[in-house]
């Protein structure tokens, strides 16, 4: 049992090196990478934007309530923006991304495996790592930080809507407190680095699960489930480690 788990982790690590080695070759199929960015990024915009808006609105409501106990509602903009940029934006986006894009990558590659399309590619001397795996990996790395930024921006707008328009906080206080305590490099860019790492991890897990799935319909179903479970666990664990390092 433990041996199996270790073997999985080891195989996944080796698979990462195989993908990295295939990236230069995959740049010849750059159009495929663009298509994958469209699929995992642009098509995820609706869910990311909706969730970002609602997370921001909930943060606005909850933090307004908590801060009003201490008479510090003026800090609402600061608290919302810091918690979004540093923590909630990258993590929530990563979890949504694993559910929206990771599963479809696993299912697609898993079906390719089950219907022997990957073997057919090899027969035609097309490297499936360069044509199937690497473009999806690159696309996730590009799409995740952009999605996280969109999520953050919508979250700030949601918090502004609730705090300023509904609860009557002063507009100038909201923005000036935010701008005086949020730092570009320490807060915004650190969040971007986090989301790049989450994108890479989710892509690796999704592609690996699809690539190594048992070629049955049941196998594809299990692989898709495992993608969501593993990516969520790894994203949250990695988040702790990266926060400790980027502090």
């Amino acid at each position, binding site marked *: 049992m433990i041996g199996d788990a270790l073997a999985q982790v080891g195989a996944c690590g080796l698979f990462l090196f195989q993908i990295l080695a295939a990236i230069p070759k995959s740049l010849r199929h750059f159009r495929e990478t663009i298509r994958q960015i469209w699929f995992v990024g*642009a098509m995820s915009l609706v869910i990311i934007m909706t969730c970002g808006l609602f997370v921001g609105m909930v943060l606005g409501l909850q933090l307004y309530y908590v801060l009003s106990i201490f008479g510090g509602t003026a800090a609402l903009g600061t608290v919302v923006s810091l918690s979004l940029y540093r923590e909630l934006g990258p993590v929530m986006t990563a979890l949504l991304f694993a559910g929206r894009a990771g599963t479809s990558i696993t299912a697609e590659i898993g079906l390719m495996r089950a219907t022997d399309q990957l073997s057919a590619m090899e027969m035609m001397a097309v490297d499936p790592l360069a044509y199937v795996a690497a473009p999806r990996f690159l696309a996730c790395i590009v799409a995740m930080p952009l999605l996280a930024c969109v999520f953050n*921006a919508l979250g700030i707008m949601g918090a502004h809507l609730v705090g300023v328009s509904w609860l009557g906080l002063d507009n100038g206080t909201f923005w000036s407190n935010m*701008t005086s305590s949020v730092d570009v490099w320490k807060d915004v860019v650190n969040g971007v680095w986090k989301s790049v790492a989450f994108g890479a991890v989710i892509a690796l897990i999704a592609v690996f699960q699809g690539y190594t799935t048992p070629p049955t319909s049941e196998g594809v179903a299990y692989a898709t489930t495992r993608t969501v479970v593993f990516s969520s666990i790894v994203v949250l664990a990695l988040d702790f480690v990266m926060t400790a390092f980027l502090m």
Partner: protein
Amino acid sequence: MTQRRSYQIGTGFFILLGFAALAYLATQTTSVANFRQGDSYTLKARFTNIGQLKLRAPVKLAGVRIGSVESIELDPTKLDALIKLSVDKRYNDVPDDSAAAIFTSGLLGDQYVGVQPGGSPDMFKDGGEFVLTQSSMQLEDLIGKFLVNGSPQKPADKASAPDEAAAKVAAPTPPAPDIKH
């Protein structure tokens, strides 16, 4: 062909939107938004205690932001804090007998430099120095004075002459109630 074009347009739109969001976050919601590289001039002020004042803290006149704190240094001979304020050129008609004081915005807020305009017909020039300054209020000092004297008649820390003058000009303290034991 049309399908290929539509996803390429979609991808381009997505990438543009993502970078627009990043640019918005980085420039509008962070300290970059306060960093206006407009024309400005420098004013100096000396304080015996600056409290928690930080670099780039706002300088306000009548509550309106007119500039920011450019540098904070310790004067090695006079042993007081020398603050350089960079003030926007648009606000170049500040009377040269104005007073500078360090205030706290709200209960938990950051500290800022508040300017109280004087009545002099002459205006500050580049490099001008505030004669009247009032240091940051230290909660411990206030409590200490209150407990020891009953009323804050003599400042416990040796405030420099400008400081006391500023205290009288800027904020005449109401007589504190005597505590009889």
